[in-house]
């Protein structure tokens, strides 16, 4: 087994065929930047960011609906911090709050249940974005709502699932030679999903953890593996089968749907919505597909799908900066544009 220094030396001096590795997950994007990994790789190894930041892939009409809800009397929108600054077609939740709208930021979505219990006359809506990792949280909230007396909690969902998005990206113009599979999605889905996808797409997949050394090791593996091969390099939490209990809860309350991805359009079977029998907990999530961008020239969609690097967007670094973000990829701390801008990647 090579030690970390040998891996570092190998990656710096790599002179084989060019590798284009997509890190699907936004938390991987953030960790790659935080660890300064791009500077440690040979120019023949390129890392590109994928569609795995839930904030970045959320369409404008969803944000518009959230801001509208935040400005509705007697209604509070509860959200993760990341969503605050993303603009819809006109404004962000932060802007809505400045106009007197009610927005609360939480660490754990479960907090909405306490808020609702303490303020029974107010309607609370959770901005339920996320991938396979986060959806079980919403399933458990629905379960609690069904079993308890709390009546004033609803979800506005924009829930996505990875496989179809990865297929779309793999079919694109950019030749991807390897995928860093999303580590925490794999916790739920199991490594099996990505083993199957590696075979189907004939591209190697490595399920990776989030530490700097883990990421370097996974990149090392992706330079060695051949098409169709895969490895689970995050065995401390990722099992072959994943978390079946979590998937069961999700399948009980949610069903697959077509979903709109920012800049990528509607992808068949790439999302989840509450089943009809639980529609009373939904505030109209299904119809939110329109993606009228705040700035029409924004190339977020091409960036998310690996077609363009962030600096391939005409707005990057000029009109669009972290101070004046035009698209979600520059807003989110997991967005590719944000990291390319702030780290000169």
């Amino acid at each position, binding site marked *: 087994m090579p030690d970390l220094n040998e891996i*570092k030396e190998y990656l710096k001096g790599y002179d084989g065929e060019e590798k284009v590795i997509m890190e699907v997950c*936004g*938390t991987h994007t*953030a960790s790659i*930047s*935080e*660890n*300064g*990994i*791009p*500077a*440690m790789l040979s120019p023949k190894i390129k890392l590109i960011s994928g569609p795995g*930041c*839930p*904030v970045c892939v959320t369409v404008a009409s969803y944000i518009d609906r959230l801001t509208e809800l935040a400005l509705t009397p007697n209604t509070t929108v509860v959200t*993760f*911090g*990341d969503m*605050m*600054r993303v603009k819809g077609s006109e404004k962000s939740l932060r802007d809505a709050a400045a106009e007197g709208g009610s927005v609360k*930021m*939480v*660490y754990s979505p479960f*907090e909405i249940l306490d808020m609702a219990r303490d303020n029974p006359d107010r309607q609370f809506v959770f901005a339920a*974005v*996320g991938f396979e990792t*986060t959806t079980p949280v919403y399933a458990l909230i629905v379960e609690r709502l069904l079993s308890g007396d709390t009546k004033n909690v609803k979800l506005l969902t924009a829930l996505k699932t990875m496989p179809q998005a990865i297929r779309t990206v793999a079919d694109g113009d950019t030749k991807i030679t390897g995928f860093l599979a999303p580590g925490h999605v794999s916790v739920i889905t199991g490594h099996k999903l990505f083993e199957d996808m590696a075979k189907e797409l004939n591209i190697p997949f490595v399920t990776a953890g989030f530490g*700097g*050394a883990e990421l*370097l090791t996974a990149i090392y593996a992706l330079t060695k593996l051949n098409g169709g091969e895969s490895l689970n390099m995050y065995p401390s939490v990722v099992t072959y089968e994943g978390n079946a209990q979590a998937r069961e809860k999700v399948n009980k309350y949610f069903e697959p749907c077509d979903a709109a991805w920012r800049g990528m359009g509607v992808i068949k079977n790439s999302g989840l919505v509450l089943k009809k029998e639980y529609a009373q907990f939904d505030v109209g999530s299904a119809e939110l597909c329109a993606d009228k961008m705040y700035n029409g020239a924004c190339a977020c969609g091409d960036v998310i799908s690996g077609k363009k690097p962030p600096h391939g967007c005409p707005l990057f670094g000029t009109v669009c900066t*972290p*101070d004046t973000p035009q698209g979600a990829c520059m*807003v989110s*701390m*997991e967005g590719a544009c*944000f990291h390319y801008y*702030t*780290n*000169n990647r």
Partner: protein
Amino acid sequence: MKITMAHGSGGRSTSQLIDEIFRASSSNPVLDMMEDSAVVDGDTKIAVTTDSFVVTPLTFKGGDIGRLAVCGTVNDLLMRGAVPKYITTAYIIEEGADTGTLKLIAESLERTAKEAGVTVIAGDTKVIEGSGGVYINTTGVGFVKDGADIKSANCCEGDALIVSGTLGDHHAAILSERMNIENNIKSDCAPLCEMVQNMMSAGVRIHAMRDITRGGLGTVLCEFAKNAGCGFEIDEDKIPITPEVRGFCKILGLNVMHMGNEGKLLAVVSESDAQKALEIIRKSRYGENAAIVGRAVKGGDVTLITPLGGRRKVTELYGEGLPRIC
């Protein structure tokens, strides 16, 4: 008792409020004259700063808005090599504020002023509509000894960067209360008079200093790099941070380089004085965890050398440093 709009009328209720809370807490010959302005001594160059304090909650682990107001003001004066002397305090109080809390804040402010060696020489109280908030605006005045010239433009290649203690404590303490995370993290809010005065009287060649408040070390270094003719390099594994704060950052996806502090400074000192300065800071109050974290280098970039051996550019804080979940 709750504050009402009557307390801001300028009449009897206002003077009662001032007597019972603010004068009872801070009393000295200048303030007690109750004139329209304070007339005080001064015979050197003076440093002046002003600041406003809007923190919620008003009291938190390790401090309160009163202590914070003094620390923030005094530390700003110290960073230019001034000896803090006077402070003024203007309270803007929303109706509904609790007089008990106000008293606690005013007393804490006075206690901290005594610790820092400054006298409260003027004050003001206004009441506005609202829901119990309290805001404090201050002005600080310090005396600058002849020859003291500490400013960011003085940084030069080779200088050592010293951080006076663990980073992120204040930010984590405040966010913990807001995000319902239980821990023993306390705000580091403290006046840094002793360490600065000890360094100055020992003749340490301090080129620049900044208290590492909102925006964190990353933002301070980027500001320095704009004004100085050099860049900076930080060794990430040298940055002092407690295990609790590190764990806290991990939960919320925060970066300590952008977390605020209220009792920590960055000193850029001549390389040959670095060890001496470090020892002085470590022996001074609030400085026991000080560390040399990096150096000034050629160019204009601020770079972090990661424990993994990678390099990444450090930027100012963008946005609000919100917790990141997804």
